[in-house]
């Protein structure tokens, strides 16, 4: 039988042990979080190294052959195959994230830079070498800002898997507070009243504000893939006071 003092002592020790165990849990939680970010970081690092190698290959090809189209084509094909894997990990991480960490946010910003870099590369490849892949810039946010983004993401994932060799999706989290993303938001996401509309997709040269259903998106993509992207369909730059500000394609 436990007497009153012993009971109190036991409760105090149990409480102290609980604090120790909870602290241990938080510690392991931190270790897990670091391991997850590290896992994505190494993927990103690999992608960035590959991207750098592609640039060097381009420079070599230009110098030796006077034409870098073959390297550009290979780079785009590589991006179509490899960017999706990290994107998927980022999605999984966001689904399970309980605590917002700076590490993950930084990583996502870096990844967004890489995506935009490929987006520009793709544009260049189309212009200079006629590389013909459909590119979708997808502006999304979480539920509170964009309740339909989940559904739009599901449909986009379906088509990305269906047209795995023909489509490259560039998902941009509009809450990341990055200059290049903000520039694109100003250019494509704001409607006539200046209000941001989510989700928004820019499929090749065309902007689609608001949710696009399965069937409609299917038809759009089919047409885009079939016809290819025609650079002359839109002007290259929006000009304001003679200053080039926003790349449109």
């Amino acid at each position, binding site marked *: *039988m*436990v007497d*009153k003092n012993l*009971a109190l002592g*036991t*409760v105090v*020790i*149990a*409480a102290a*042990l*609980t604090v120790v*165990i*909870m602290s241990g*849990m938080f510690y*392991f*939680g931190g270790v*897990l*979080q670091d*391991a*997850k970010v590290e*896992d*994505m970081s190494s993927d990103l690092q690999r992608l960035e190294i590959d991207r750098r190698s592609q640039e060097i290959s381009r420079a070599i090809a230009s110098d030796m052959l006077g034409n870098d189209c073959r390297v550009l084509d290979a780079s785009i094909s590589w991006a179509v195959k490899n960017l999706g894997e990290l994107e*998927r*990990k*980022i999605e*999984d*991480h966001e*689904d*399970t*994230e*309980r*605590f917002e960490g700076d590490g993950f946010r930084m990583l996502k910003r870096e990844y967004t830079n890489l995506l935009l870099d490929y987006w520009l590369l793709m544009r260049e490849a189309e212009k200079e070498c006629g590389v013909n892949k459909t590119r979708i810039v997808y502006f999304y946010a979480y539920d509170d800002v964009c309740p339909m983004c989940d*559904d739009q993401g*599901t*449909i986009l*994932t*379906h088509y990305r898997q269906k047209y795995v060799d023909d489509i490259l999706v560039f998902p941009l989290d509009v809450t990341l507070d990055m200059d290049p993303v903000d520039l694109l938001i100003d250019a494509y996401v704001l409607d006539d009243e200046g209000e941001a509309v989510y989700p928004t997709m820019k499929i090749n040269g065309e902007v689609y504000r608001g949710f696009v*259903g*399965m069937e409609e998106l299917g038809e759009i993509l089919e047409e885009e893939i079939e016809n290819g992207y025609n650079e002359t369909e839109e002007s290259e730059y929006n000009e304001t006071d003679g200053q080039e500000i926003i790349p449109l394609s």
Partner: protein
Amino acid sequence: MGFTTNLYLTFFAVMIFSTVLWLMVYYMNLDKISKDPEVKDYKDVTFLVPAYNEEGIVGKTIERLLELDYPENSFSIIAINDGSEDGTLDELKKFEDDIQIIDKENTGKADSMNVALESVDTEFVASMDADSYPTKHYLKSVMGYLDDEEVYGVTPALKVCRDDTLAEKIQWAEYIYQIFLRKVFALFNVQYVMPGPGSVYKTKFLKETGGWDDSTLTEDMEMGFRMMSKKHKIENSTNAEVMTDPPSNFRDLFNQRTRWYRGYVQNCVKYKSMIGRPSGGTLGVFLMPLNAVWIAMLMFFLLHTAYNLAGIAQGWVNTYLLLGYFPLDLSFSLQQIEFFHIFLVFFFSMGVGTVFLSLYTASEPVNITEKKINYLSFFIIYPYLFAMFWVAAFLDMVRSDRKW
């Protein structure tokens, strides 16, 4: 961190605290877990066996009581036929040379025991539900504790007598776990139930305090609260095995548990003056508030799980409506592991450890192959079932004023 995450973390802390506390109490008293005090002199005991429509089992109960390893002239049996409509009385009459039989109109279990209590002249009295029976050494294991003047009651180690159906299998594991829990509760002086099958009392205490309370849904729990409120000790013997007949299906189990849990709330209200006050002892200061947190926590878990499952189902339907098919994704990555999974692994390990400890305490072989359904259902189904019964009990309390 969101509100829900904070709430879960608070509950996890409570779960860890409770588990650590009971494990500490267990290990601090290892020498007392399986060792009962020896019986110095064989004190007289009267068994009260109230029976209502128990023709199928009451004969076995009486037989087992008569076979107890205890001097024949030191215990007697009073069986009460509480207005049964089946052959219970005929079954009892088969033993009329060895036991006293009271045949009365149906007034309920507590009142039946009180009627019999009037005829008891032994120092101790034991209750034995008609659907339960003791093992041979039960009484010897129990009676040694009563040499201590401060001990007013002793509880047995209850086990289910069969585990054929799923409901019985779950209860099999639950009762084994309860043997562990009842012992640590006794060691921590917070045992608040004197189970109907096999609890032994000081007759004087019962008579002085008016016998069993027939106004409560759980008179055995009321008796535990009453003893605790008067600062009397209740001991427990893990060797005093009593086998009880469990509800065979979930409907009967549901009815039994909602009655028990309503009874618990009823007793908490009755003894509310114990809560948070030093005069309420460890039960009032510590366990009653802790139990309240546990109950709230389990109901939250249940409702939140239901909410999450509804969300998942809605997500599936939504995806189907969007795509026209269910995309099957069986891929796994490190990114899918989250912070809460660490707690899940921890609680599962603690749960498995506690079940092993309970098996050891209950002197039951582990027997994983044969009892795998019992263990699995206890881990997977029982927590939700337990929480569901509590929700149902509360709804029942709100809706009606049902009596036993």
